[in-house]
């Protein structure tokens, strides 16, 4: 019964086409110009790496980082209330673990090699972090929480597939809880916005501006495409004026002009004004990104929706927008990334977000001149944040991709 497979006699590739030397020859030394380039770049690289390493191990004084770690992460948030931050982190860990488990319930393996490596690195960092021992234990605990809840989410998600629809509700509710935990209020001692700082404030401003600017940007994009002239011209004027001026002027409008616009005696919170400025600014950019997506949806889609009896509002919400948003995911996430980076400008107006707090750390006589160490550290945090967002966008794009 068994047929012998046709014997394919494959000869081994010639020795000079495989192996390290062949790779080197193919990728680094394939012409005299490339060889020269490789040598020059290699020398420069070795030189600067050597310079950096010798600086990092001898001249640099890294003590500034562990000594100010709480400042970089939560600013002047009262120490007695740190437990609230830990509760928030655990809540988010459980939620993201659950979402991950439920959304990938049909995958063969929950933890593939790359994810396990990432967790390993994160655990190593958590164990070696220069913080008091209880914090390290908490950090490892949070990692464990993510793993455990993703496993749970997978099991529960397989039993009740309809659970996926409740995830967004969970996230929405968690926002309220997080807000309550940060700011205090009902049953908790309040913490003034002036005491929020560091990464906490950066994240707060980024997340709230992203959440607010998303619907506003979509409305503006629809307004710009609208057949109603008044709406169209208002949207165009708003978008073009905002896109024509730097963000810092808008922040100045919020800080200096808005108080003049309000009735005497009413003063807005500075943080609120900054978030509004950030929101309006990125909404104008987002509107242009969404408009690109809207233009890519063929007219036939609207006409088909109308033919099925949907009115223009429903046709836009149910048919056109989902397709338009899917197309513009990369540019929208790009806009969110620059929004995260733009929160640094609020520091120029005196807020203690991560870059602002680093300025006050550097003004401390004990740490004067330690610019490179501090900027490397917070630069790494920003980089991780932004890079994670762009990775997430690529994954989302892949998942939603329905073309063949």
């Amino acid at each position, binding site marked *: 019964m068994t047929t012998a497979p046709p014997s394919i006699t494959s000869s081994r590739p010639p020795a000079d086409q495989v192996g390290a030397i062949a790779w080197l020859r193919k990728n680094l030394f394939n012409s005299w110009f490339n060889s020269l380039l490789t040598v020059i770049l290699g020398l420069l690289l070795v030189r600067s790496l050597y310079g950096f390493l010798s600086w990092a191990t001898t001249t640099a004084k890294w003590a500034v980082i562990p000594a100010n770690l709480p400042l970089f992460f939560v600013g002047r948030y009262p120490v007695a209330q740190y437990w609230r931050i830990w509760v928030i982190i655990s809540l988010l860990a459980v939620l993201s673990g659950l979402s991950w488990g439920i959304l990938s319930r049909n995958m063969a393996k929950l933890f593939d090699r790359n994810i396990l490596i990432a967790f390993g690195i994160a655990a190593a960092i958590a164990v070696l972090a220069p913080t008091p021992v209880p914090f390290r234990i908490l950090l490892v605990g949070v990692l464990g929480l993510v793993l455990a809840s993703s496993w749970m989410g997978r099991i529960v998600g397989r039993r009740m597939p309809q659970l996926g629809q409740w995830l967004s509700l969970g996230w929405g509710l968690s926002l309220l809880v997080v807000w309550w935990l940060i700011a205090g209020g009902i049953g908790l001692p309040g913490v003034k916005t002036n005491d929020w700082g560091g990464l906490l404030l950066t994240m707060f401003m980024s997340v709230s501006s992203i959440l607010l600017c998303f619907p506003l940007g979509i409305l503006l994009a629809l307004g710009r495409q609208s057949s109603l*002239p008044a*709406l169209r011209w208002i949207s165009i004027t708003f978008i073009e004026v905002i896109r024509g001026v730097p963000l*810092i002027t808008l922040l100045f409008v919020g800080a200096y002009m808005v108080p003049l616009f309000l009735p005497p005696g009413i003063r807005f919170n500075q943080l609120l004004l900054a978030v509004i400025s950030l929101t309006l600014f990125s909404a104008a950019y987002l509107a242009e990104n969404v408009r690109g997506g809207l233009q890519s949806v063929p007219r036939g889609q609207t006409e088909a929706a109308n033919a099925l009896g949907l009115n223009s509002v429903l046709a836009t919400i149910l048919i056109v927008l989902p397709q338009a948003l899917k197309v513009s995911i990369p540019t929208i996430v790009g806009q969110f990334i620059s929004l995260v980076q733009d929160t640094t400008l609020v520091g120029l107006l005196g807020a203690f977000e991560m*870059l602002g707090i680093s300025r006050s750390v550097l003004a401390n006589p004990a740490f004067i001149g330690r610019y490179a160490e501090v900027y490397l550290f917070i630069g790494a945090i920003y980089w991780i944040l932004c890079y994670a967002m762009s990775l997430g966008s690529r994954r989302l794009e892949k998942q939603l991709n329905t073309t063949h």
Partner: protein
Amino acid sequence: MTPSSSGEKIPFWRDDRYVRIAVQAIVVLILIVIFGFFSGNMSRNLQQQGRQFNFSFLLQGAGFNIGETIIPYETNSPYYWAFVVSLVNTLRLIFVGFIATTVIGVVAGIASFSNNWLLRKLNLIYVEVVRNTPLLLQLYVWYFAIFFGFSDKGNIAQLPGSVLVSKKGIVIPWSNGSPIAWVSVAMLLIGAIAAFFIWRRRIKLMEEQGASGQREFIALVSLGVVGLLLFLFGLGWEFPKIAASGNVEGGLRMSLEYGSMLAGLAFYTGAFIAEIVRAGIQSVSKGQWEAAKALGLQPASSMRLVVFPQAMRVIIPSLSSQYMNLAKNSSLALAIGYPDIFATSQTSLNQTGRAVEVILLIMAVYLTISLVISVIMNLLNQTVQFRER
């Protein structure tokens, strides 16, 4: 609730004609109410402070110093002159920034197609690091960590290419500005124009008459040699030196603030331009490369003659928004103390308290700059688009 028959009139709230007008009227009304509320409050607030909305303060003496100026400025010059002087500073930064960032971006964009592994990886690291960290942080790094780090403790640091960095600024080699140097510059310009026309003539002759183009080629090469000699020896290059007094002499001095702003803006925008250039080149279909190869063109010539001109059509529109971003981001000069228009307006705002006037003025300035960039880029865009028959 009777089912509507064809003879029945549609209620007006379902009639599209009424709804369209009503929606617009409501939106406009809301806007008018909001604006009315704001401007009413503003005039009341200004009245309380005993002020009026006008721009007469621009004629008063400014009374503050501007760190770097190209055109003459004194402490008691009027405000409007302070704005002009600092606007020139902004334009100086933006203009040089455009050139630098274009060079960096195009080189980095093309480098991502190199078959040299090391170059590709270094390029990737550059783009990913710069795009994923805030510009303001990068400006701080350039200013505080790099330039101030080099010139630590009053020393003068010598960088490759005879660039000297000290607390007083960055000094690069520059022409000594003698009459001979100016003559050389003029000759270089004339030579460049002549070379351009010879090159066009060569292409035309080769295309229309099948000429070898040898004569023109020789002319071009000799022009190039003369140009190179003029460039090397005619310009009177002056290399900065540390004089006996401990000061730096010769060369062109830029302030540390200007240098940091220029480097920060050029490298930041350059990374975005690199991505645009990469996407533009990728958008040219592979068949174009293969066709060019089939015609016997070398890879470099295929890139220059076939692929890049087509990529330009995709690149230019996005490039325009990057240039606008660079112009707008130049307002971050405020953070490291380069006296650009934004820094001056902040000082004026604090001194006069005229927030509304100053902010409107600065918005008008940036809107104008953005408009000019977009008009120029649109003109440029028209020249590279397909000329279809």
